[in-house]
C-alpha cells in the first residue's frame, strides 16, 4: 500500500490487511518503530508491550490465513489507557500507589479489544486516577502535545491523544468523566468521543466517579472513532449500570455524513466570555458551514449549564473519596511504613500519603468535606439537584434541536506548568464538556481548524441525546468532510511539533 503505514487510518489499514497487501505483523512493527523513534519526546506510553503486540498480530495473520472470520478492525494497533485492567500488562492509573501492579483480570473493554483482533501496543499515560486536564498529574511525568512539545496534550486521556496525534497508533481508548476524552481530543486536533453513559462497560475500569465514568474512542478520523466505538461498546452483565440496549449505528452514521434538514442547536451559555477569540471564531465558522450544508441552526439557552462546573466539582470528588478508599495498602498496591510497630490504620495513612499525588489528595479531601455530616445537604445534596436541572435543560433543548453544539474547550492547548499550581484554572478546561457527563448523554469532539492567534487546534463539540450517539457521528463526519474539502488535506497534516515541516 502507498505511503507510510503509520500515516494510514484504521479503516485504511484494515482494508489493506483484508486485501492481503500488508500483514498485521508489518503494521504492528511499523507502529512499534514509530514509538521507538518519537516517544522519548512525546512520552505517551507508560508501558510498551512489543513482544505481546507482535504475538497478537501474528495470531491475526494466522487466523486470516486459515480463513477464519475476522472483525472490521482485526490487526489494527491500538494504544490503551492505563486505567483499564490488563492481565498481561501493568496497570498504574498514573499513580505511584499502583506502580508495577499486574491485575489478575482483563477489563471488559480490554477483552472486547482482544476479541475484535485489535493489537494492544501498550498502556498510555494519564492524570493520576483520571483527575486532571493535562497529564501533569501523572506520577510518571507529563505527556507532550505533538503540535508543540512545550504544551499539554490535554487530559486525563492525554497519553492516548498524544499517541494518536504522533502517529504512534491510529486508535486509542480513553475515559471521560468530566471531558477527559473530548478535551484531549480537541487540543490535539483529533476526534474524541464520550458515548452515552452505560453504553460502554466500566467493569475493570479503575473507578474515579462511578456515576460519570464512560469509556470511549480517540482516533484521527470520525469513521475510525465509530469503528472503535462499535468494537468496544455494548451491554455487559458485569457492570450493573450497563444499558441493555443495542449499540447505536455509529459506523453507518459516520459513512452517511449528512446533515440536511437536521436541527442544530447553538448553546448560548457555552461560548463567549471565558472563551479564547480564535476558538469562538473557528466555532462560529463551523456553525455557518453546517448551515451551508443544509442544517437548520437554532439558538437556544441552557441556563443551568453555568452551574454544571461547580456541581461536578462536588459530585466527582465525593464519588472519588469513596472509590479511592479501596487503596488501603492491604491487598494490592503500595504499602509504606509497615515497620512492625505502626498499626494497620497508621500504615494505611502513611501509604496513602506517599502513594497519592497532590490533586488526588485534594479531591479526596474535597469529597470527604462535601459528604460529611453538617455539610452534606449544602454541598453534595444541592449538587445532585443541580444535576437534575442540567438534565432538564438538555431535555428542553433536545425538543428544539436534534443535536447541540459548542466549542469543545474554552482555550487551545496551554503550556506545561502554566496551570499546575492553580487548581481552579485547571478545572475550567472542562467548562463545555461537563454538562454531558452530568446528564449522561453522548458527545463528540471533531477538529474544526487552528486558532489564528496561536496556530493550535480547536475542537467542535456535538452533543446528542441518550442513546442517539449515531446523530453526532453524522454531524461530525459531515463537518470533517466539508472542512477537508476546504483545506485540501486533514488538519493533522499541519502538526509540526514532532517532524519539523508539515506535509
Amino acid at each position: 500500500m502507498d505511503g507510510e503505514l503509520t500515516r494510514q487510518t484504521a479503516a485504511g489499514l484494515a482494508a489493506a490487511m483484508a486485501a492481503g497487501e500488508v500483514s498485521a505483523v508489518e503494521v504492528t512493527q511499523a507502529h512499534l518503530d514509530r514509538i521507538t523513534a518519537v516517544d522519548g519526546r512525546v512520552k505517551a506510553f507508560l508501558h510498551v508491550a512489543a513482544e505481546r503486540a507482535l504475538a497478537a498480530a501474528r495470531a491475526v495473520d494466522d487466523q486470516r490465513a486459515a480463513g477464519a472470520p475476522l472483525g472490521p478492525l482485526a490487526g489494527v494497533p491500538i494504544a490503551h489507557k492505563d486505567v483499564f485492567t490488563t492481565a498481561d500488562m501493568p496497570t498504574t492509573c498514573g499513580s505511584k500507589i499502583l506502580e508495577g501492579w499486574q491485575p489478575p483480570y482483563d477489563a471488559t473493554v480490554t477483552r472486547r479489544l482482544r476479541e475484535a483482533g485489535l493489537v494492544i501496543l501498550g498502556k498510555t499515560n494519564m492524570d493520576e486516577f483520571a483527575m486532571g486536564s493535562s497529564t501533569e498529574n501523572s506520577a510518571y511525568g507529563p505527556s507532550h502535545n505533538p503540535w508543540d512539545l512545550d504544551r499539554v496534550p490535554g487530559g486525563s486521556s492525554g497519553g492516548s491523544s498524544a499517541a494518536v496525534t504522533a502517529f504512534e497508533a491510529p486508535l486509542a481508548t480513553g475515559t471521560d468523566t468530566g471531558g477527559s476524552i473530548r478535551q484531549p481530543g480537541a487540543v490535539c486536533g483529533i476526534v474524541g468521543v464520550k458515548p452515552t453513559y452505560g453504553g460502554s462497560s466500566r467493569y475493570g475500569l479503575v473507578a474515579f466517579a462511578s456515576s460519570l465514568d464512560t469509556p470511549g474512542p480517540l482516533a484521527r478520523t470520525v469513521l475510525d472513532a465509530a469503528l472503535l466505538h462499535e468494537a468496544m461498546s455494548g451491554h455487559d452483565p458485569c457492570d450493573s449500570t450497563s444499558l441493555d440496549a443495542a449499540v447505536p449505528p455509529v459506523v453507518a452514521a459516520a459513512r452517511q455524513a449528512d446533515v440536511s434538514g437536521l436541527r442544530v442547536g447553538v448553546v448560548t451559555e457555552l461560548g463567549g466570555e471565558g472563551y479564547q477569540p480564535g476558538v469562538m471564531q473557528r466555532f462560529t465558522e463551523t456553525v455557518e458551514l453546517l448551515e451551508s450544508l443544509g442544517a437548520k441552526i437554532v439558538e437556544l439557552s441552557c441556563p443551568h449549564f453555568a452551574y454544571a462546573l461547580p456541581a461536578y466539582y462536588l459530585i466527582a470528588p465525593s464519588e472519588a473519596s469513596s472509590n479511592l478508599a479501596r487503596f488501603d495498602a492491604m491487598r494490592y498496591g503500595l504499602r509504606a511504613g509497615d515497620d512492625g510497630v505502626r498499626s494497620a490504620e497508621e500504615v494505611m495513612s502513611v501509604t496513602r500519603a506517599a502513594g497519592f499525588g497532590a490533586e488526588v489528595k485534594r479531591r479526596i479531601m474535597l469529597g470527604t468535606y462535601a459528604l460529611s455530616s453538617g455539610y452534606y445537604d449544602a454541598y453534595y445534596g444541592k449538587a445532585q439537584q443541580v444535576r437534575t436541572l442540567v438534565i432538564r435543560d438538555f431535555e428542553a433543548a433536545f425538543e428544539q434541536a436534534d443535536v447541540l453544539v459548542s466549542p469543545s474547550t474554552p482555550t487551545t492547548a496551554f503550556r506545561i506548568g502554566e496551570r499546575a499550581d492553580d487548581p481552579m484554572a485547571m478545572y475550567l478546561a472542562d467548562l463545555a464538556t461537563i454538562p454531558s457527563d452530568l446528564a449522561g448523554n453522548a458527545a463528540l469532539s471533531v477538529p474544526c481548524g487552528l486558532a489564528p492567534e496561536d496556530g493550535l487546534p480547536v475542537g467542535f463539540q456535538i452533543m446528542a441525546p441518550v442513546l442517539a450517539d449515531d446523530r453526532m457521528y453524522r454531524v461530525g463526519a459531515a463537518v470533517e468532510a466539508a472542512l477537508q474539502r476546504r483545506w485540501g488535506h486533514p488538519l493533522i497534516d499541519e502538526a509540526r511539533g514532532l517532524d519539523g515541516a508539515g506535509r
Partner: protein
Amino acid sequence: MACMPITREEVAHLARLARLSLTEEELDRYAGQLDVIISSVARVGEVAADGIPPTSQAVPVTNVFRDDVIVPPIGAAAALDQAPAAEAGQFRVPRILAED
C-alpha cells in the same frame, strides 16, 4: 451562601477521616486551596431550590438481575499474587489493635 473559611484544623480533621498522613506544609497549602474551591462550588446553592429531586445516576436502570450461575473465582493464588505481604495463603496485615 455564606460559608465559614476552611481552617487548618478542619483540613487536619478531613485528612484523618480520609486516612491521609499530611505534613504541616501540606496542611497549610490545602487549607488555602480547599477554601478557594469550596467557596466557588458553593454557587450550586443559588439555584438548587426545595422540591427539585436529586439525581444520583443520569441514565437510571432498575432491577438489574443476572442468571444465577456459578462463575469460578480467580482463586487464592491469583488474589495473593500482588499482595504487599502474604503468609500461609492469607494477606498479612499490620496489627489492628492499639497497644494500650
